[in-house]
């Protein structure tokens, strides 16, 4: 209770500050209390993200990556500190922070088209006409090249296709920030590579701000402008932020031998396996 009050007063002081970032994660703590036991998951997380940036969050499992994403999405609330999107505090989920869930989370009783249309109808009910909403749904299906399966149900398409639809649904909300929680984690390597390329292509075309959680070092280096590396929990925080200065568009095969790519990759690996190697108790 006291912590919430703190968070509120903090917000006001931050809002006064000039020259803020697009998305500001400001001194965020998160503790979970269950059955009298409190677990400190995140401690003093600070991160500012600019508009149009592609950020990856990487860390060992149990370090609170997903918790951080849930905090940004508003699905869980911060214990202390504040998350500000365009200077407004995030305290509830909303379509301006659309989430691509790890397991796609499509509604199985709706067709591919209806899954996206549900989001489009909800977000644009007041601003777009019926025809425009249909066109917008189809446009987003075409962004992920899934128009051909629009009348199929999620159970009738492959895992990669489901994740494409999940991405299309999130994009269709025209979010200020696109949040992705290990979006390709459940896919095979080839499908994953294709979807990574789709995401890169869409990001370069739409220029949206994106925060992605991953545990794949190559994926992080390939896609990101910056990689946020998290220390192991409990009480995890940001250990290091690595800027990836590779020119875009990036080609997977060309990068393999690029010294900058190799260096970035090595830096992340060193962080994960030398300085913050996986601790069993953190799992």
């Amino acid at each position, binding site marked *: 209770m006291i912590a919430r009050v703190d968070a509120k007063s903090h917000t006001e002081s931050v809002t006064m500050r000039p020259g803020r970032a697009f998305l500001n994660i400001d001194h965020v703590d998160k503790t979970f209390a269950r059955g009298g036991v409190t677990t400190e998951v995140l401690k003093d997380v600070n991160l500012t993200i600019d508009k149009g940036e592609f950020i990856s969050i990487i860390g060992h499992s149990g370090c609170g990556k997903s918790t951080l994403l849930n905090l940004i999405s508003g*699905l869980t609330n911060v214990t202390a500190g504040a998350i500000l999107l365009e200077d407004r505090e995030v305290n509830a989920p909303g379509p301006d922070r659309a989430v691509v*869930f790890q397991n796609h989370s499509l*509604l199985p009783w709706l067709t591919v088209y209806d899954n996206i249309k*549900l989001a489009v109808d909800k977000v644009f009910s007041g601003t777009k006409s019926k025809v425009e909403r249909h066109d917008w749904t189809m446009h987003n299906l075409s962004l992920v090249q899934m128009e051909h399966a629009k009348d199929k149900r*999620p*159970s009738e*398409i492959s895992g990669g296709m489901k994740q494409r639809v999940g991405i299309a649904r999130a994009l269709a909300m025209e979010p200020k920030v696109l949040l992705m929680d290990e979006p390709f984690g459940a896919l095979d390597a080839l499908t994953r590579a294709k979807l990574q390329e789709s995401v890169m292509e869409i990001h370069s075309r739409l220029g949206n701000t994106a925060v992605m959680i991953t545990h794949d070092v190559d994926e992080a280096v390939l896609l990101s402008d910056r990689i946020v590396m998290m220390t192991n929990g409990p009480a995890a925080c940001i250990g290091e932020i690595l800027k990836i200065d590779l020119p875009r568009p990036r080609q997977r095969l060309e990068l393999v031998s690029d010294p900058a790519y190799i260096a970035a990759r090595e830096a992340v690996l060193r962080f994960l396996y030398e300085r913050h190697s996986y601790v069993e108790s953190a799992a």
Partner: protein
Amino acid sequence: MSAAAVKLKLVETHAGPLPPRVAAVAAAEHVRKAEAVPPAPTKPAVVFARWIGRGIAQALPALIVTLVLLLIWELACSGPKASLPAPSKIWMESRDLITQPFFVNGPQDIGLGWRILTSLQRVAIGFGLAAIVGVLMGALVGQSQWAMRGLDPIFQVLRTVPPLAWLPISLAAFRDSAPSAIFVIFITAIWPVIINTAVGIRNIPQDYRNVAAVLRLNHAEFFWRIMIPSAAPYIFTGLRIGIGLSWLAIVAAEMLTGGVGIGFFIWDAWNSSKLSDIVVALIYIGVVGFVLDRIVAALGTLATRGTAAA
């Protein structure tokens, strides 16, 4: 296959930019190839033939067993001192009831089909109300921890009360037999609907709730777009148990309240010692109950297409 492969080659070998449309088509083909498309469904004619074949294979043993049982029954009840009528006697005495379900000879002398329809009408009203109220109550109990703690103990006690025990109370409350019979059906059928709906709603995956939260669905939208479809398999299980119970209750209720229904017919036949008529009525009830169960099950399958396979 070959066309797609050629296009794919094009994309891979040409280092320079392709015309965007070709690239897009090729990329789409690429995706379709890589992510295995499920096989096309079998032709309807083949499915139908297979279905008929399976039907015969399933019906034949049932037919044989029925004939054998009828034979045993005939032998067991053919003696002069038999207390129950044999099938041949039933056929002789109650042939009009079996062959003509829809005759009308007078206000109380009507075919069993009419009586069944009257009973079905009562069940439709009672069960319909139970379905609507049951799903709403179940949604409340499934969604709210507080409502669950408050209402669940009451439900658990009340659902064990036998249908007929409600009858005197409802007769006293409604002062009329028709609404009393409907109330007994309602109160009998509602519990499995409530309990199963509540379980279904408690089992809505967190993912769907998260989707709803991100989309900011309001309560009504959440109820119609997420809750009902997600809990549909559970709801239909409850409805299926409920329709069976209400068909059980109608017969008992009508025996006491009188009127035109099938239950009253049995009671009336018993009072005039027409045992053959009772047996025929029992078979009618059994067949109708079976059909009701199948109808609800089929509706459930239709309504939950895709929901079960997430």
